[in-house]
């Protein structure tokens, strides 16, 4: 029995456990009425950010494609789910657990419709590579936003936004964190399965992956669809955590904010995405509520400086030695376990990025001006 327990790869479950503990601790505090609204709102936002970051991390970190339209899929989920809940709420009034039924139905509607959009956009767009795919997803997000912005007042509210029922703030964050667990379960089981290996193989070398018989299009589309599905779910949660869904929120800036979470968390690291999403959302919220009045102008300045410093510290090749010297993990290991060896199997959620983005993203400049033989320059 004890043997069995030690065989469980605890590293696989650490994030489930962490999220579950957070949910239980804060959940019980909320039941006891010890949490003020500011904490409840912040927890909702953090959960939504985590779902967005983890789902985007599938596309960017594991599939190796750059998407700048995640907020667009979220927008679809928020509007469709929000509309569904606004319509269902009066119908189910009086029915036992009517609100919960409405919530589940709108989650399904928002998620599925966003996933459908993922397929519609993914089918043609996945022919494109690198920055071309990135700009098409950005364009898609802006189109979705513009279309919802110009709807009539009766359908989706137009410029005034769609008014949606807000779910009880004492419980919504618990539901949101349960959905975080669902999102983690789906994502991690996919990534750790043989399909996940196929996906990372596509990221590391698409042609080689294709040559080994992996159906690249199928996998790309599947990842894109699942990612959009969870973006849609996050959108429905968003509509439940606000009284109004306004399309102005879902601009490319929001997509970029989600991308920042994924990149800061480390490409291909789900735990990293979770932590970065939490940190950034917390930082954003703190800057917003602490820097009031005349100090408000410093918010963006501080945010920008923190962002630049962290990215340079984490990524600059020149700082590699410095980073290794102050490497917390290495320090701890040296202290406690000199013979520590890495467990490769436990690393499925942190496959090191071997991708040469330069190669994926590059497109030839000015072929007609080139004096080089185009065949020679690529066969390095």
């Amino acid at each position, binding site marked *: 029995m004890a043997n069995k327990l030690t065989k469980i790869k605890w590293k696989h479950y650490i994030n489930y456990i962490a999220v579950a503990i957070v949910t239980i601790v804060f959940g019980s505090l909320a039941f006891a009425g010890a949490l003020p609204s500011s904490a409840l709102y912040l927890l909702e936002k953090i959960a939504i950010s985590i779902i967005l970051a983890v789902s985007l991390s599938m596309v960017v970190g594991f599939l190796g494609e750059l998407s700048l339209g995640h907020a667009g899929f979220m927008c679809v989920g928020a509007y469709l789910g929000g509309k569904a809940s606004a319509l269902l709420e009066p119908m189910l009034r009086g029915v036992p657990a009517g609100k919960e039924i409405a919530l589940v139905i709108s989650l399904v509607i928002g998620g599925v419709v966003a996933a459908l959009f993922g397929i519609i956009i993914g089918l043609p767009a996945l022919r494109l590579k690198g920055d071309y795919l990135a*700009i098409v997803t950005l364009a898609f997000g802006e189109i979705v936003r513009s279309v919802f912005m110009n709807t009539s007042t009766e359908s989706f509210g137009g410029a005034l936004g769609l008014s949606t029922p807000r779910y009880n703030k004492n419980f919504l964050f618990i539901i949101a964190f349960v959905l975080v667990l669902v999102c983690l379960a789906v994502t991690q089981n996919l990534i750790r399965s043989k399909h996940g290996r196929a996906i990372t193989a596509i990221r590391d070398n698409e*042609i080689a992956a294709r040559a080994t018989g992996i159906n690249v299009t199928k996998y790309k589309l599947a990842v894109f669809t699942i990612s959009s599905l969870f973006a849609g779910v996050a959108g429905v949660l968003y509509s439940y955590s606000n009284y109004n869904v306004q399309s102005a929120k879902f601009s490319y800036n929001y997509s970029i904010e989600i991308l920042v979470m994924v990149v*800061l968390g480390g490409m291909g690291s789900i735990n990293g995405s979770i932590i970065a999403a939490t940190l950034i959302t917390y930082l954003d919220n703190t800057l917003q509520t602490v820097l009031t009045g005349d100090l408000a102008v410093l918010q963006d300045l501080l945010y920008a400086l923190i962002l630049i410093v962290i990215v340079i510290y984490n*990524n*600059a090749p020149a700082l590699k030695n410095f980073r290794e010297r102050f490497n917390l993990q290495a320090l701890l290991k040296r202290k406690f376990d000199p013979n520590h060896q890495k467990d490769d199997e436990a690393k499925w959620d942190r496959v090191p990025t071997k991708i040469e983005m330069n190669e994926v993203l590059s497109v030839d400049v*000015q072929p007609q001006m080139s004096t080089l033989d185009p065949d020679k320059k690529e066969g390095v």
Partner: protein
Amino acid sequence: MEFIETLLNGLSIGSTYAIIALGYTMVYGIAKMLNFAHGDVIMVGGYMIFLTMANIGNPVLGLLIAVLFCVVLGVSIEKVAYKPLRGASPLAVLITAIGVSYLLQSTAQIIFGSAPKMVVVADLGNLTIGSLTVPYYMLITLGCSVVIMVALSLFVKYTKTGRAMIAVSEDKGAAQLMGINVNAIITITFAIGSGLAAFAGFFMLMKSPSLSNTLGAMPGIKAFTAAVIGGIGSIPGAMVGGILMGIVEAISLTIPAIAPYTDAIEFLVLIVILLVRPSGILGKVRREKV
């Protein structure tokens, strides 16, 4: 007549986009990075023109100072924020570029306040030929843009530095082996791109005198779209893409039924073009090898 006016208007919007897109495309071609802060350099250029106009009152001098300042700014941004990340993942550079963009916008608000400034660069009036009314600023924008584009093409094609730029964009490693100072070339590219951004700022202020710290954000994104439509990395592509975007924008705005969707329509054009030509209009389809 109205259609010709719309078309001319589209050309002048488009040539501004093209000038911005050139900055995007050159930096992309050589440093292989998306410089999201490029749009905000335009804004900084705008504020420089504003300062000169308020203190000296000469628009040409304003343009000159703006170009100089933007060149210095662009080069320093490259040195401080992008150069340490050379060799790191391009996504990391993308994120610092976004950071720099926020930084420039909020610094501008701290220095110049939250109220947008009115900068009337020059009051030039209209040229009237028969029933055709064309503001002079449009002609100036068009003329300058053509000169800039021709000059840039000649520079890249015939000067040693220009050819070195092509070499670096083709193959950084090989270029280095041939004795090209890659770092210097990247710096020069940023300098040229930022200088062009100052020109774009000048054109935008000539057209519409409102200056705020978000001046460059949307034009920046649209110019990036234009660069991709034309085939990112390609200089003539940036011009074609920019002009196309401008004309689509102008026409769409004149039709009331679709006017509110103008931004969406521009992006739709992008999607359609990329579906037909996945590397943009003038971009080369890349062969892949293992």
